[in-house]
């Protein structure tokens, strides 16, 4: 068989070690379409990232096995490419083609040639058959599937070669029924059959799907929870259950920094095509300050306190229209100057919104900055991104009447650009005084920024 004739499986990719499932959000190709290797085949959503899945091979898309909107486990075959047609029969060699069976081990050992336990192996084994593979459906799975109107291909398989086992399909049924809040199906155990050789029980066709869930109340509408929303919900709850959240706030006078930024902006935009945002300044100042406060960049890990000589800086990025929040990470932010941070932040934010993040882009953060100030909010209490120890919040920059002291020591009220900055920290690891000093030093850096600082 030529290489082109062998079907290639497209599987749900592993998007980070803790991700176990993903949702197919859109098929970019349809059955029958010609696809090139690395061409975008579909889009998936996991609780970490939304991303495009490139085609693993060139060929005709012969089968789509998971519909849009379905959530399946990592490793589940989503589609097949090539294999000479849409027929499942020809697409069967999903697993690597079985090697030529070895000449069967001697079925009946010659007298006197029996050697150790090798004698029994041909009798105990499965006769050298290749593993059954994903597309093989065992009798019991076929029966349960037909009784409940399930397509076995929808069921994630844990057996040899991804085969759907009886346990898999029963678990699938259970979770489906639980989701549908339907009364449990009749137990699959049949009444004991007393006749010595009874015909197989004639099952009433049970093709009707589980009844729909109870409708919402008047005026309510319902929509399914996306994988990302479920991931966020789980993570938020777990974070609050894990850390002792405390928030401290400080007011920062950014008047001086605003002036510097205004001068820098045309230079950065003309020279590098990047906007030196306030966030970039705050990030730069935060990375510098973290150097003096390793616990704030640290982690409480079991009975150990972990500190680092690097900063992987996370930024909370809102996706379009409240579709969720993602925290891409700039790795080794301590190696980046203001320009590098500005470019890095712009890059990961753009890629997050375009669903182009890679698993590594959302992993390994040690400290996070969230910037909900764009809408004018002046205070907040964000939730720590576990297992980090703290999260910095930056809020709206507001012109306020502000008491300043002139070089002669005289007080005056001036109009200044003030931003509130919060540090929400895990009080298990970070004491209030430490948080206060961190915020004080951060403020100091921002307020005394020099034109030559970068």
């Amino acid at each position, binding site marked *: 068989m030529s290489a082109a004739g062998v079907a290639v499986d497209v599987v749900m990719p592993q998007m980070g070690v803790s991700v176990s499932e993903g949702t197919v959000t859109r098929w970019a190709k349809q059955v029958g379409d010609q696809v090139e290797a690395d061409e975008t085949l579909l889009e998936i959503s996991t609780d970490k990232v939304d991303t495009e899945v490139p085609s693993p091979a060139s060929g005709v898309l012969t089968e789509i096995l998971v519909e849009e909107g379905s959530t399946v486990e990592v490793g589940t075959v989503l589609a097949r490419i090539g294999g000479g047609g849409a027929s499942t029969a020809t697409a069967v060699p999903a697993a690597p083609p079985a090697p030529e069976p070895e000449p069967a081990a001697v079925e*009946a050992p010659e007298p006197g040639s029996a050697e150790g336990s090798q004698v029994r192996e041909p009798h105990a084994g499965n006769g050298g058959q290749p593993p059954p593979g994903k597309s093989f459906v065992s009798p019991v799975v076929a029966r349960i599937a037909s009784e409940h109107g399930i397509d076995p291909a929808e069921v994630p398989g844990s*057996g040899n070669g991804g085969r759907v086992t009886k346990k898999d399909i029963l678990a699938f049924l259970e979770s489906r029924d639980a989701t549908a809040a339907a009364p449990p199906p009749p137990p699959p155990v049949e009444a004991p059959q007393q006749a*010595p050789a009874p015909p197989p029980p004639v099952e009433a066709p049970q093709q009707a799907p589980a009844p729909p869930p109870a409708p919402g109340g008047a005026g309510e509408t319902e929509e399914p929870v996306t994988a990302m929303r479920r991931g966020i919900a789980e993570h938020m709850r777990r974070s609050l259950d894990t850390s002792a959240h405390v928030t401290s706030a400080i007011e920062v006078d950014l008047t001086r920094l605003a002036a510097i930024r205004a001068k820098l902006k045309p230079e950065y935009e003309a020279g590098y095509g990047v906007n030196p945002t306030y966030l970039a300044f705050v990030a730069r100042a935060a990375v510098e300050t973290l150097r003096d406060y390793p616990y704030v960049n640290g982690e409480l890990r079991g009975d150990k306190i972990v500190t680092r000589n690097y900063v992987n800086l996370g930024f909370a990025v809102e996706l379009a229209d409240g579709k969720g929040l993602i925290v891409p990470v700039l790795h080794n932010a301590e190696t980046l100057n203001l320009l590098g941070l500005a470019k890095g932040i712009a890059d990961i934010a753009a890629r997050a919104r375009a669903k182009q993040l890679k698993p590594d882009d959302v992993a390994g953060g040690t400290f996070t900055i969230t910037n909900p100030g764009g809408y004018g909010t002046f205070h907040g209490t964000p939730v720590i991104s576990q297992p980090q120890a703290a999260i910095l919040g930056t809020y709206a920059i507001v012109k306020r009447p502000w008491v300043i002291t002139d070089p002669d020591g005289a007080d005056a009220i001036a109009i200044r650009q003030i931003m509130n900055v919060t540090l929400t920290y895990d009080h298990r690891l970070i004491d209030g005084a430490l948080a206060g000093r961190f915020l004080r030093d951060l403020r100091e850096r921002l307020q005394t920024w020099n034109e030559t600082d970068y």
Partner: protein
Amino acid sequence: MTEMTYLQAISDGLREEMRHDKRVVVFGEDIGVYGGAFKVTQGFQDEFGPWRVLDMPLSETAIVGGATGAAIMGLRPVAEMQFADFISCAWDHLVTVASKQHWRAGTPVPIVIRLPSGGGFSGGPFHSQNPESSFAHIPGLKCLCPSTPEDAKGLLIAAIHDPNPVLFFEHKHLYRRIKGEVPQGRYTTPIGKARLHREGEDVTVVTWGAMVHTAAEAAQKLGDVSVEIVDLRSILPWDEQAVLASVRKTSKVLVLHEDTRTGGFGGEIAATIAEHAFEHLDAPVRRLTAPDTPVPFSPPLEHAFIPQVDDVVAAIKELVEY
């Protein structure tokens, strides 16, 4: 209840029946004065006298032929083959006459043939066989293969009560190795009813005789796999319903026997499962048996020949992972 070895339980059952019913007599080689090769009938001649505990010539043909005749004349003989292997000499009397007498003439033939069988101690090719499958093919016979002392006694008494020929396969490797609580007095264990040796959810092992204990050790070793062990106890008739019920529960089956593979009774069980529980199977029915050779004498070869605990563990794992 009293704790007894498998051997003591057989002896106890036989003694109880002889005390209860004067028609029960025992025939065999060296069973009288010597008390039997394995001492099952030790002291019997003293208690019951030489006319009920008969030392026979070295002729299995004569023993089974004599027992058949005595049964037709109204006695309830229990004949001992010194080793099950030698029953082949008595094949004609057993298969041609005794098993068919009821069907041919309506005459009951209430004989029990005790058959010390099985290997595991370098008995070699003539003293280690498990010939139950050969006789399970003969309509009119019953073949019992108890695995515990309680069942050995109860099934032996049931066999003596049975009006037709019963072959009672006693596994020699269990004689003194396996102990258990045994009820006192007379009781019967139903012929043709399996016993759940161990309940489980993931895999069913169908077996009998000494392999029940091998399977139980394997199940113990597997820990995280929930293994159900069906001890058939009787392979003719055999408890199809118990096996099918277990298969419907677990959907994965290992048929395990110490006898050789081809034509072994495991094939019959596998075929019945395929016929009646096909739609409940989640894996092929697997057989684990001895290979198709005589039982080797050499200890390492015999060890390789008889299914061992690790072989059962591997076979169960294969099924679980299927």
